[in-house]
């Protein structure tokens, strides 16, 4: 069996029989922007990784200060790059059936790239070096290594990256649920119950699950980042270390993990092109995604296994969820992928080979993750290089492979051919040998007990780092061959966009040939699909409106006197009191937005304002809870009253904003906006 040679067709002959849509011009351009930036960031951050490995191998003489700066940049920059690439790929495949907004996607792009630039400035210019995890209170114990502005720049940078992903998730959730008629139908639950014959395609299921989990993760991220920014503005503010660690990892672990699920959405569309078999939504796939929705969010807490004060039940829940999260992957997603490939006369191209290799990286990396997630094992592997090994296995050898597969697919489609056999073998051989060699050394070092995040490794272990550095260089060579192959495909694609036309000069009667750009195919310019049902309102019908009013009144009457009373004794309760006022305002705002007269005026523009409101308002609300702002008001009832009215007014803006996002997304935004305020109150104090 051999790989297809150059000029061979790039899709399976049976693919034409499958129901597939031609991507639009804008989708191709946007995908290029995202995936191109993602791959560029990967290359730069990869070089930073090589410099770190060479330093540990005692070949390069980076000082510890520079090592830890690079380490911080490598982690945060890679996250931004991989996120961008997989977001672009998923958006590209989902937009063929769902009218996702291009404007909002570009806002996400600007925020994430802006955030990445801020991270570069904070680390390379400001010397910020806490690792991407920025664990409280390390950003404020710099040991003279970085100034306050660098801390602020880094935190704002990550806030921008989180906000960018938040915008993306809001748009995806809003548009998928509109297009397929509600959350239950979009998640396939209606189909599962036998009440729907046409469930959404699997890439839409993936997008919806990622959007829900992404919103939760980003809400946690905004909360912890705003808490640290508040601490920077007001030194009286105190933050609970366990609370901070939980939310930091809920954000960071979840977003990093979600990049795989973003990428699988694109893989659902790519595999049928090469296997000639459709990847349809089936009941097992729906069940797998519903379990993924549950397990991925609960798994983050394995980062806190060695924090023995974390409640024991949460530890065991996390252990179970971390193991169980592998079951939908192993039994449904990868298994189905293998079934589609098996006996299909699979069309082996550079892109389809990367897709196939990505499946292997996912399950092998998942094995390392599951072993590490078993608490007694983690007791001996926690924060050793084993951890670095497992997440590099599925990020480098799965997510990055799929990101590169997507770029290659775009170029192969445009060029009408794949790379040459030599290029394919060299590129894949280099990346597979280099990649697996690199992670194997890390696994081995983990077994040895070598700690992660060390600028200087323990005595006698430099040889491992040297071996790893050599494997990185082998990977880099493979990657360079891949880039060379992609340049060749791009040149062919460019040439195919033009035709040679003979032109005759009527004066001199001379003839010559000129190149003329060909028109885009008709399908590439077709209009966007229509949504199945309009946005809807947060509270539908008088019963829900009545229930919302009753809930608001009961909550406030039952809750407020106690919290006001307790506020005099405890700052936590005083913040909870503010969260109560915020909740009241938010419910009022959502009720107003649900009134028929108001709802009739909601449109796309108000939805944009709504997105801005649900992101900015909870952040502002948390920022104004600074002890130095509220403290001087104590004993001045009129000013205190106005402050509380202001908090409730912010809640009203959140409610109105959520109302503009429609029934599903609006309710979700309302819930997480208010939850952020309540959870924030649980972790901060001072003043």
């Amino acid at each position, binding site marked *: *069996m051999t790989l297809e040679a150059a000029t061979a067709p790039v899709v399976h002959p049976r693919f034409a029989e499958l129901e597939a849509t031609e991507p639009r011009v804008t989708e191709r351009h946007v995908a290029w922007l995202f995936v191109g930036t993602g791959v560029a960031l990967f290359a730069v951050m990869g070089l930073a990784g090589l410099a770190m490995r060479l330093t540990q191998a005692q070949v390069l003489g980076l000082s*510890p*200060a520079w090592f*830890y700066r690079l380490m911080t940049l490598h982690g945060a920059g890679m996250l931004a790059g991989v996120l961008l690439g997989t977001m672009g790929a998923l958006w590209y495949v989902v937009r063929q059936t769902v009218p996702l907004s291009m404007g909002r996607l570009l806002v996400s792009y600007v925020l994430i790239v802006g955030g990445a630039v801020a991270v570069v400035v904070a680390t390379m210019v400001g010397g910020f*070096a*806490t690792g991407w995890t920025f*664990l409280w*209170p*390390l950003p404020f*114990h*710099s*040991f003279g*290594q970085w100034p306050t502005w660098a801390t602020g720049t880094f935190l704002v940078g990550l806030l921008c990256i989180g906000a960018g992903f938040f915008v993306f998730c809001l748009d995806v959730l809003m548009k998928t649920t509109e297009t397929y008629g509600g959350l239950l139908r979009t998640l396939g639950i209606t189909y599962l119950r036998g009440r729907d014959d046409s469930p959404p395609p699997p890439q839409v299921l993936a997008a919806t699950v990622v959007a829900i989990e992404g919103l939760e993760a980003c809400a946690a991220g905004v909360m912890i980042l705003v808490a640290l920014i508040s601490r920077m503005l007001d030194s009286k503010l105190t933050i*609970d270390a*366990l609370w901070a*660690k939980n939310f930091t990892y809920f954000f960071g672990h979840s977003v990093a993990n979600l990049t795989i699920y973003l990428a699988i959405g694109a893989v659902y569309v790519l595999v049928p092109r090469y296997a000639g078999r459709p990847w349809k939504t089936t009941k097992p796939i729906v069940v797998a995604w519903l379990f993924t929705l549950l397990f991925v969010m609960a798994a983050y807490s394995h980062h806190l296994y*060695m924090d*023995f*004060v974390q409640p*024991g039940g949460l530890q*065991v829940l996390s252990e179970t969820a971390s*193991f*169980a999260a592998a*079951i939908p992957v*192993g*039994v449904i997603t990868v*298994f189905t992928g*293998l*079934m589609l*490939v*098996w*006996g*299909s*006369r699979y069309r082996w191209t550079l892109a389809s080979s990367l897709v*196939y290799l990505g499946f292997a990286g996912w*399950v*092998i990396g998942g*094995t*390392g993750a599951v*072993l590490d997630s*078993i*608490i*007694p*094992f983690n*007791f*001996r592997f*926690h*924060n050793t290089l084993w951890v670095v090994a497992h997440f590099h296995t599925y990020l480098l050898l799965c997510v990055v492979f799929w990101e590169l597969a997507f770029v290659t697919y775009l170029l192969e489609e445009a060029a009408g051919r794949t790379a040459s056999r030599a290029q394919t073998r060299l590129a894949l051989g280099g990346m597979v040998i280099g990649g697996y060699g690199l992670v194997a050394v890390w696994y081995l070092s*983990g*077994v*040895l*007990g*070598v*700690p992660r*995040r*060390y*600028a200087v*490794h*323990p*005595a006698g272990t430099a040889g491992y780092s040297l071996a790893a550095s050599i494997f990185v260089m082998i990977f880099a060579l493979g990657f360079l061959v891949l880039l060379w192959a992609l340049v060749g495909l791009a040149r062919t694609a460019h040439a195919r966009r033009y035709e040679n036309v003979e032109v005759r000069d009527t004066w001199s009667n001379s003839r010559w040939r000129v190149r003329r750009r060909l028109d885009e195919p008709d399908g590439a310019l077709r209009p966007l699909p229509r949504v199945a049902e309009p946005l809807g309102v947060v509270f539908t019908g008088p019963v829900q409106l009545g229930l919302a009013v009753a809930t608001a009144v009961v909550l406030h009457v039952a809750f407020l006197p106690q919290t006001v009373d307790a506020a005099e004794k405890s700052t936590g309760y005083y913040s909870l009191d503010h969260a109560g006022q915020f909740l009241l305002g938010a419910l009022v705002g959502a009720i107003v937005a649900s009134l028929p007269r108001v709802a009739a005026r909601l449109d796309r523009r108000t939805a944009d304002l709504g997105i801005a409101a649900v992101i900015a308002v909870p952040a502002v609300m948390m920022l104004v809870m600074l002890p130095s702002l509220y403290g001087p008001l104590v004993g001045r009832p009129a000013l205190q009253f106005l402050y509380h009215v202001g908090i409730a007014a912010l809640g009203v803006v959140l409610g109105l904003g959520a109302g503009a996002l429609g029934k599903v997304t609006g309710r979700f935004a309302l819930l997480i906006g208010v939850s952020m305020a309540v959870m924030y109150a649980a972790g901060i104090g001072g003043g």
Partner: protein
Amino acid sequence: MTPHYGEPQVAVGIAMVVISALLAAVFVVGWRQSVADVPYERVQAVGYWVRKRWLAFLCALLVVVIGLSLFELPYARGGTHGTVVTVKGGQFFWSIDPARIRADVPVRFDVTSLDVNHGFGIYDPAGHMIGSVQAMPGYHNKLDLTFHTPGVYHVLCLEYCGLDHHLMQASFTVAP
């Protein structure tokens, strides 16, 4: 201190190698079979049969592994009848009191931090990593261990804590 391969870690490493090799074999077979022309109905019939059993196996494995792990949780429970060792981490030092303990006597490490998060990683005299617990500001994590081998035990920081994180080392002695 020069680390050495610990026994339980080697067992986990071997498990990783075996499982990865089996998975890699599946992908190699899948690759070789990809060029064949098999009706998808046939692939589905066999695939669904295998998948049901694969699911049952993984679910059973989950129950067994999680169940067994509950007997080996490192979290300290109840009171202690042995020595209490107070451990405080700070940038970039460890304070261990007392730093000399007796072999075969239960020890409860009461671990906290004076500033940022640290990781209290314990290596035995031969350099085997035997476990870790986090040192978190404002909290006391309690780890119960009984040492049977006398000698000098080394401590490395296992949570990144700043510029000299890799230099944050200490030791304590287990006397016979």
